[in-house]
């Protein structure tokens, strides 16, 4: 899936003022790419991810998904896009505590209108793919952080998305578990799924083929893995 953003701005009302989260970002992400967004807190990287994932609409500018303008689509159409084409992975896993593991993975399929028996089958397969075949009936609170994130990845994968948007997927995990989670995501990228990861960790950034550094709601710089000094930015600028 190709994503294209053109002069995208996003502001939020904050108290009596306005928070400008994005101040005019133009970039595109090609089908099958592996891109990491980096930048300090408040630089706008999560906002960018939410816009790319049709979870939010820009205040101005245009967003294209596979050549289709999406920022003005009605709610049902955006929900449909999220459901069919986009898989989200969040830092704090975002599992539904009342549902057990397999039911959590079934949730996107439910909204896709898949019938119950098929749902269970596909969810079990997705959990098997992330190594949790024996944990189907557990509740999220019975799992470790790494296992929870793997359930979240299974939930993202179960609809066979064209793009995975991961917002600090390893932020709450130790480095070894974090690496395992990244490997799972990268395995999907190797299969042709576009992978966009927001992270603070330079080690994780090193694994991507492209790094976009954000600062103050703008793209500060970006580099490809075959650029010199990757991923330290032009003239050795430190990534943050």
């Amino acid at each position, binding site marked *: 899936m190709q994503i294209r953003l053109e002069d995208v701005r996003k502001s939020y009302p904050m108290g009596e003022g306005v928070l400008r989260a994005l101040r005019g970002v133009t970039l595109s992400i090609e089908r099958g790419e592996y891109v990491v967004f980096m930048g300090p807190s408040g630089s706008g990287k999560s906002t960018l991810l*939410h816009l790319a994932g049709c979870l939010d609409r820009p205040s101005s500018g245009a967003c294209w998904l596979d050549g289709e303008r999406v920022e003005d689509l009605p709610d049902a159409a955006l929900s449909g896009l999220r459901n069919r084409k986009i898989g*989200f992975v*969040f830092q704090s896993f975002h599992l539904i505590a009342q549902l057990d593991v397999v039911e959590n993975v079934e949730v996107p399929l439910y*909204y896709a209108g898949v019938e119950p028996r098929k749902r269970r089958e596909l969810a079990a397969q997705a959990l098997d793919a992330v190594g949790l075949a024996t944990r189907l009936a557990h509740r999220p609170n019975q799992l470790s952080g790494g296992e929870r994130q793997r359930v979240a990845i299974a939930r993202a994968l179960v609809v066979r998305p064209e793009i995975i948007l991961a917002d600090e997927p390893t932020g709450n995990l130790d480095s070894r578990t974090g690496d395992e989670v990244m490997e799972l995501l990268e395995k999907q990228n190797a299969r042709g799924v576009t992978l966009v990861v927001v992270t603070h960790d330079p080690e994780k950034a090193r694994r991507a083929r492209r790094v976009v550094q954000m600062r103050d709601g703008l793209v500060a710089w970006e580099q490809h893995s075959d650029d010199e000094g990757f991923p330290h930015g032009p003239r050795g600028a430190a990534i943050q």
Partner: protein
Amino acid sequence: MPWSVDNVRIGIRNLLAHKLRSVLTMLGVIFGVAAVVSMLSIAGGARREAVEQIRLLGTNHVRVKHRELVGEAREQADQRGSRGLRRQDAAILTEGLPDVDGVAPVRFVDATVLYGGQESTGHVVATDEDYAHVTGVRAREGRFLSPLDVRGAKRVAVMGADAKDELFGFRNAIGRRIRIDDGWFTVVGVLERRNVREGKEAVVEVRNVNRDIFVPISTASIRLPDARREGAIDEIAIRVDGDDRVPRTARIAGRLLARAHRGVEDFDIVIPAELLARARQTQRVFNIVMGSIAAISLLVGGIGIMNVMLTSVTERTREIGIRRAVGATQRAILGQFLMETVVVSAAGGLLGIGLGFAMAKGINLFAGWATVISLPAAGLAFGISALVGVVFGVYPARRAARMDPITALRFE
């Protein structure tokens, strides 16, 4: 989507996950529905009973009753020469009324009935052979009074089922002689038992024919004379040919008798069907009271449910965000929360139906009121409870559906 099995399942699971909270949430609906169900059961019972009683009296019947005049009215009646309701009045009505299927004079005789030294608590009723046809009583054994009995002033008696049981028990009464005041009467018939309800709780007061002992009116006037009112009768029973002609017949009977009594109003005309209407009027008051209780309970119950659902929506903000992120539309979220409210209120409705029937049964046992447990009443109550869920669930569900996904996901 809102009514999908999954939404119902989610609703039931949430209900069971917080049992105490769910029951407390449902209380208002439970009481409201219980009030509706018990009200309908009691109303249904009363209606059925009233209809049965009226059926015993006959919907195609008119009764003319003697009215006892006192003081000035009595003097005026005497001056005009009216001597109250008399046998001749029955003859006037037989001749003068169109569409009449039978007319029977009735006199209630104050007499002592004895058999084998035992006194009966039954009442002696003097009438003629037409009474059976007019009121629909039937002989279980033997026969009713015949024209010959009446014309010949025979000393025969026909006993109601209870009156016979009281004096004879299981023994055969036919052919036996009972003593009424100073005369001996031969029992020629025993009537079929009629299902009559007596006492204060009866919706419409109906004479208990099971306790009556019938004798020919001619015999009574000779053997059991009324010292106060010679030749007088207490009632005329009229059977009309067709229910729809009852009001007209009653009007004409009133006019005929007014002329015969020279304008003295010493009689009342009673239409059993009107008694039913009066009974319904009383019932209506009861229904309004119970209906108001039900409406208030349901309103309070609905508000209670809405309150809990609003809390639930806030508690589950993050869940809503997650669901939206993985593809739930606003409509789907609306449907889910609406369905959850409906599940809570419908569950309350089911419990309320149970409680309502228990209340109806309790009222039946302790107060002696007739109640009818009807499925349509239960269905209606269940429908109302589900409707309460929809009405009071819309606002919380809309609030859930309209949440911004990003804000919902970030909710702590």
